[in-house]
């Protein structure tokens, strides 16, 4: 076979497959996908460590936390056993953005506020009584285990939050308020724990999957209660989603 024949066949193959892909792909819903894990981190970056704050368990008996992040990345994780908390604040990678932050702790009340940056908060779950996480225009991750009657409140607007909460004692409450954002949460409670979930959707979709109870979706403009029969005490979850999506899974 001559060179021009080989080249001709090659060009025909390239042209034919290109034309076929371009014509058929939209019809079958295929398009190339390139999901970037931790896109907010990539966008805002995790620059150099600006500051870190920590206290030992001997200094703090009970911990109430409020962490607020606007534009950036927030992680909440378990601290080492000897630590009550540790906060690490990182600057943004983008040269034009400065990171404003404030970290204040007084009498076991820890307040963390970060604008345009990344923050990692390590908490000791055994003394954690209450935590409020507020994320706007950013992403948050919460990975905490050994929770004991800890009261949670998540507020997400124009951002995303995901994570896992593992309770050793699930007699507590968890509030999730999302507007223009997404939340994906896995909750593990002891086998004998009872669960009560109130889900409100306002132009939103809330998927609830509770092991041995229900798997349902609350969407559009709807409110629904999913609860263990005869619920009196246990984990009370209140979800309010507006123009948002929530995926909640409870394992026990």
């Amino acid at each position, binding site marked *: *076979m*001559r*060179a*021009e*024949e*080989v*080249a*001709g*066949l*090659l*060009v*025909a193959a*390239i*042209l034919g*497959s*290109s*034309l076929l*892909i*371009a*014509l058929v*792909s*939209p*019809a079958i*819903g295929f*398009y*190339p*996908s*390139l*999901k*970037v*894990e931790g*896109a*907010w981190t990539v*966008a805002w970056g995790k620059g150099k460590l600006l500051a870190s704050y920590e206290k030992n368990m001997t200094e703090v008996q009970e911990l109430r936390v409020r962490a607020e992040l606007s534009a950036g990345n927030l992680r909440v994780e378990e601290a080492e056993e000897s630590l009550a908390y540790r906060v690490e604040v990182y600057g943004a990678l983008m040269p034009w953005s400065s990171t404003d932050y404030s970290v204040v702790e007084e009498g076991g009340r820890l307040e963390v506020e970060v604008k345009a940056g990344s923050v990692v908060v390590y908490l000791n779950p055994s003394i954690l009584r209450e935590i409020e996480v507020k994320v706007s225009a950013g*992403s948050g991750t919460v990975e905490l285990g050994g929770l004991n009657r800890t009261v949670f409140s998540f507020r997400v607007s*124009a*951002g*995303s939050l995901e994570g896992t909460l593992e309770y050793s004692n699930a007699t507590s409450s968890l509030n999730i308020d999302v507007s*223009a*954002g*997404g939340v994906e949460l896995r909750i593990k409670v002891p086998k004998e724990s009872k669960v009560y979930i109130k889900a409100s959707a306002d132009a939103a979709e809330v998927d609830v999957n509770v092991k041995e109870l229900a798997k349902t979706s609350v969407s559009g403009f709807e409110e629904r209660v999913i609860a263990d029969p005869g619920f009196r005490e246990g984990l009370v979850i209140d979800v309010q989603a507006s*123009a*948002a*999506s929530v995926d909640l899974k409870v394992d026990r």
Partner: protein
Amino acid sequence: MKIPGALVRVGGFITSPRVYLSIAIHERRGPLEPLAYVILFSASKWGLRGLLVAGLAASAIGSFGVTPLEAVTDWAAPWLTSLLVYGAMAIGVLFELFLWFMWSLFTHALAKSFNGGGEYAHSLNAVGYAWVTDSASLASLLVAVASPRLALIALLGAFVAWVWKGVVVGIGMSEAHGISLGKGLASSFFPWLILAVVGSAIFFLATSWEAWWT
């Protein structure tokens, strides 16, 4: 296996452009074949570009987890992607037909100024046949669509195809007008140079005007 003559010719424009362009031009073929080249290559190229842009845009929105945008793209993705891809194909074909016409017009005028002896139809065909070099662009786009992490390779492919096309147009003009290869290449690349100079001048004037105005 007998390969159809049209396919051999396409291959010939790639492996031995001087020989095959000389034959095609002096056989006084009509503009239908180059017209088909321009339409098919530009439709495929702009279709794949639209597909890549739609995919990357949807991925970027999804990666940031901004649900309303994600929900909109989820809901609208089928028709939005179709609109983008087929729209890109249609506009791309029209744009490249215009480009073919304008490029051949300018390159013909330049070839004439170099004492070229060919007709405008020769220039039109020589420029149109050169669209086979878009196979480089298509190959790189196929790689980018299959592996979006290599999306930048599509830009490299487009640049390689543009330079290659310019060289093939230069060879074609040299054959069509009986001028030297150097003059053929000059008549091929000169319009782009003029376009770059005029574009830069307009940009410079616009920014100066804006600075003066503000």
